[in-house]
C-alpha cells in the first residue's frame, strides 16, 4: 500500500524530470539549421507558463474549490514581486554572479514576498469573507487597485517609474521546482479533510456550518495561502522580467488569470494547469494573429461559459493529480 503511494509520487516526479530534460535538450541541441529548436524566447514563454500555472491553481483554490469570487489576484502578486525585488536588489544588492550567495537570498526573498502577500490576504479576506454574496469580488478588486496605488505613490518602490535592475534568478530549473512544489502542496491540501471542507463550503455554506465546520476560518485560511502562492509567483516573476512596474499588476492582469481559470475549468486542478498553458502558448500557435489575441481570448471565454460552463476539464483530473484510493475490504451485506 505504502509502496503504491510512493510509487505514484515517484512516477510524477520522474515524469516531471523527464519533461525538464526534454525541454532542456531542445534548448541546447542544434537541431534546426545549427540552432536549437527552443530559443531564449520560447524558454521565457515556458517559464511564464510555470508562473501562470501557480497563479491560476492558487486562484482556483479560492474561486473554484471554495466557491468564493476573488478577482484581485494580481494585487498579491504585486506585493510578492515588490517585496522580493526590494530585498534582492535594493537592500542586499545581490546578483547572479555568485549563485552560492545569490540563490539563498533569492529564496528567502520570494518566501518573504509570499508571507507579506499572505498578510495582505488576511487583511483583505478576514473582514470580507464573513459576508456573503459579491462582496469579496468588490473588495478584492478594490484591494488590487489600492495596492497598485500605494506602489505608485511610494517613491522608495520606484513609484510610477517602476523598479529595475533586478537580477535574473528565475531560470527554467527554478520555475520547474517552484511550479511542481507549489502544485503538489496545493493538490495535497485539496485531497485532505480540509480540502473536502472547502468543497463543502462551495456546495452549501449553511450545510457545511451545520456539520461542524468553522467555515469562516476555513475560507480565510484558503484565501491566505492562495495569496501566499500568488506572492511567491510574483517574486519569481519579478526575477524573470528584471523590471517591474505597477501596471504589470493591475486589475486587468487579474482578469487574465480569471480567464485562464474558468476556461481551463475552475473545479479541477488539471483545468487550472491546462488553462494557463493553452493561453500562454496560444499566441505562438496563432502567429500573425497577435493583435487579435485579446479579441479572441474573451470570445473563447464567453463561448466556454455558454456551451461548457464548467470549463475544458470540468470535474475531471489527470491521473497524476489524483491520490490513489485505498482498496476497501469487500463486505457482503
Amino acid at each position, binding site marked *: 500500500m505504502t509502496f503504491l503511494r510512493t510509487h505514484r509520487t515517484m512516477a510524477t516526479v520522474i515524469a516531471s524530470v523527464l519533461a525538464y530534460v526534454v525541454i532542456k535538450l531542445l534548448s541546447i541541441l542544434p537541431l534546426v539549421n545549427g540552432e536549437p529548436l527552443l530559443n531564449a524566447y520560447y524558454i521565457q514563454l515556458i517559464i511564464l507558463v510555470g508562473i501562470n500555472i501557480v497563479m491560476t491553481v492558487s486562484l482556483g483554490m479560492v474561486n473554484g474549490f471554495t466557491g468564493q469570487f476573488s478577482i484581485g489576484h494580481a494585487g498579491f502578486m504585486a506585493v510578492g514581486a515588490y517585496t522580493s525585488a526590494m530585498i534582492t536588489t535594493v537592500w542586499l544588492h545581490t546578483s547572479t554572479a555568485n549563485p552560492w550567495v545569490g540563490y539563498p537570498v533569492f529564496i528567502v526573498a520570494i518566501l518573504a514576498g509570499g508571507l507579506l502577500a499572505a498578510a495582505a490576504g488576511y487583511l483583505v479576506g478576514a473582514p470580507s469573507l464573513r459576508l456573503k454574496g459579491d462582496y469579496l469580488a468588490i473588495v478584492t478588486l*478594490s484591494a488590487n487597485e*489600492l495596492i497598485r496605488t500605494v506602489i505608485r505613490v511610494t517613491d522608495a518602490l520606484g513609484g510610477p517609474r517602476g523598479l529595475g535592475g533586478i537580477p535574473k534568478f528565475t531560470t527554467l530549473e527554478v520555475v520547474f521546482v517552484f511550479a511542481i512544489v507549489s502544485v503538489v502542496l496545493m493538490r495535497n491540501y485539496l485531497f485532505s479533510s480540509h480540502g473536502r471542507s472547502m468543497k463543502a463550503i462551495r456546495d452549501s455554506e449553511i450545510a457545511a456550518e451545520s456539520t461542524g465546520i468553522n467555515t469562516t476560518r476555513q475560507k480565510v485560511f484558503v484565501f491566505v495561502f492562495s495569496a501566499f502562492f500568488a506572492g511567491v509567483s510574483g517574486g519569481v516573476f519579478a526575477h524573470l522580467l528584471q523590471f517591474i512596474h505597477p501596471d504589470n499588476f493591475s486589475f486587468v492582469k487579474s482578469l487574465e488569470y480569471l480567464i485562464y481559470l474558468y476556461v481551463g475549468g475552475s473545479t479541477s486542478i488539471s483545468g487550472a494547469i491546462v488553462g494557463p498553458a493553452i493561453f500562454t502558448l496560444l499566441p505562438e500557435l496563432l502567429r500573425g494573429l497577435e493583435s487579435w489575441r485579446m479579441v479572441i481570448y474573451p470570445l473563447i471565454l464567453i463561448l466556454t461559459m455558454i456551451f461548457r460552463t464548467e470549463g475544458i476539464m470540468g470535474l475531471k483530473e489527470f491521473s497524476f493529480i489524483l491520490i490513489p484510493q485505498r482498496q476497501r475490504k469487500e463486505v457482503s451485506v
Partner: protein
Amino acid sequence: MGQFLQQLINGIQIGSIYALIALGYTMVYGIVRLINFAHADIFMFGAYMGFFLAPVMAKVFGGAFIPTIIAAMLITGLLGFVMEKLAYRPLRYKSRLSALITALGVSIFLENFCAMPFVFGPTFRAFPDLIVAKNIPIPGNLGLSVSNVLLLDIGVSVILMVLLFWFVNKTLIGKQMRAVAFDKPTASLMGINIDVVISTAFIVGPALAGAGGILYGTTYGMLASPFLGIWPGLKAFIAAVLGGIGNIPGAVLGAYIMGISEAFATSVNSNLGYGIAFAILIGILLIRPSGLLGKFMPEKV
C-alpha cells in the same frame, strides 16, 4: 476657501458623469443580480459615438450637442439590448458566476475589438467641440468661475436622473422593473414579462452610460483609447456599491461622494486621487456591508 469651493465644484462635475454610469450598474444588478463589467465599455462606446456622429449631426441639424447625445443614447441602448440577448440570456438559468465571468469576457472583448485599427483604432482622438466652451465668473470676491461645460454636465445629468426616477416610479414598465427587482418568481407569476423587463434595464442603463460618454468627451476634449472606460467605469461601479448596489438613489449619492472625494484627493496628489475611491469603498463596506442606502438580505435557511 476659494480653492475648497473650486474642488467641490469639480467634484460635483465628475460625480455627475459617474452617476450616469453608476445608474446602469445598479439597475442591471437590481434586476438580474449581475455585475455587468461590460457597462464601462458601453460608456466608452457612447463617447466614441459622439466622436463619429458630432460632425454629421452638426451638418444635418446645425447644432451638435442635443442630436448627438440622443443618437449616442439610442445606439448604446441598442448595444446593451444586443449584448444581453447574445451573451447573458443563454446563461440566465445557469450559475450566477458564469454570467459574471461572461460579463468580464464581454468587457475585454469590447475594449480590444474597438481598439482594432478598422474599428475605433487604439490611438488618441480629439473630441469635437459640441458646444463653445466659455468661462462664467461667479459674482463675489472669491475669484471663482464655472465653465458652461460644467453647467451642461450637471444640467444634463440632473435632467436624465429626474427622467429616470419618473420612469421607474410612475410608468407601468418602471413599476414592473421594481417588482422584478424585489421578487422575480412572484413578479413572473403576476404576469409580468420578465424578458421585457430585463431587456428594458439593459436598454435604459446603457443609454444613460452613452450620455455619460458624450459628457465625458465634451468635458475632457479627448478620447485616449477604447480602454478609456475601464477606470471611470470602475469608479462608477464602486459608487454604485458604495450607495448600496441595486438602489437607484444610492448610486447617485455614491457617485457624488466618489467624485467630490476624488477631486479633493487629486488636488493633493494625482495618484492618490486615483486610489482614494478604493480606500473609501473598503472602509464603508467594512462598516456597512450593504452600502449606504442598501438593505441587507439574509440568506434563507
